[in-house]
């Protein structure tokens, strides 16, 4: 790994613990569940783990992306846990609930990394198998895998120093 790659990986790695803390808090308070972490790796590819992704961009002294990647069933369960609405399809309500959950995870992460002076974008939702997430160039994203009573999901993130972007 080159010096630049190590530097960018190091910045991305700084997000791991804040992300885990943010996920624990958001899932506990909003969904009443306590996810179990099942893995943490640097990813080689750009495809997220599961078929639905909520994507939030962050800018400031670091630039990059946080992705909440969920199975279809986990996404349906998020809506049910948040507002007691049951559905069998990924509709606007599901997309809104997953987007807001991701927004809160990103906000809680950002709050723990105040020196980076991050600002967060409004979340976008991407659906379908084999979709690809674009991180800043040269970034190897991390993937934190979770299992929970509402199903499997992962949180992925890749960041670069904004001076290098």
């Amino acid at each position: 790994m080159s010096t630049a790659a190590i530097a960018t990986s190091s910045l991305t790695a700084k997000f791991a613990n804040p992300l885990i803390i943010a996920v624990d808090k958001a899932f506990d308070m909003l969904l009443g569940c306590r996810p179990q972490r099942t893995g943490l790796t640097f990813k080689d590819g750009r495809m997220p783990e599961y078929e639905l992704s909520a994507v939030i961009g962050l800018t400031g002294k670091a630039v990059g992306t946080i992705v909440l990647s969920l199975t279809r069933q986990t996404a349906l369960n998020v809506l049910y846990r948040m507002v007691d609405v049951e559905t069998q399809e990924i509709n606007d309500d599901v997309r809104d609930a997953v987007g807001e959950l991701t927004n809160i995870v990103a906000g809680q992460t950002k709050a723990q990394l105040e020196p980076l002076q991050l600002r967060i974008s409004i979340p976008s939702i991407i659906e379908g198998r084999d979709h690809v997430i674009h991180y800043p160039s040269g970034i190897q994203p991390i993937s934190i895998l979770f299992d929970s009573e509402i199903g499997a999901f992962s949180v992925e993130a890749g960041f670069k120093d904004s001076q290098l972007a």
Partner: protein
Amino acid sequence: MKVLLVDDSGTMRTIQRRCLEKMGIEHDDITDAADGCKALELFERFSFDVVLSDWNMPNMDGLGLLKAIRNRNSDIPFFMITTESERARVLSAIQLGVSDYLVKPFTPDDLREKLEKWVSVTA
């Protein structure tokens, strides 16, 4: 008590509306809007006792709404409900006259505690 509830997420509007209804506020006394522009239209047409607003929204964000309402010489209690807890951004809201703020995620008790400092909330 009449509440203007502003959030671009329908999910969050539902959650906050349920919190307010649990406090005893009538369903019809809560009016909601999905962005600051729509909220400002409602604010100019109807009378409210308190505004609860998200920060990050399309069209007009919470800070823009706060500014527009204070520019109309209104001292209505205005609460920012947000993922933004960064000190510099909170300070900018305080300078514009925000009454208080609440960071998501929050519990119904957190919301009640904040509101009770400014307005009378029925049980």
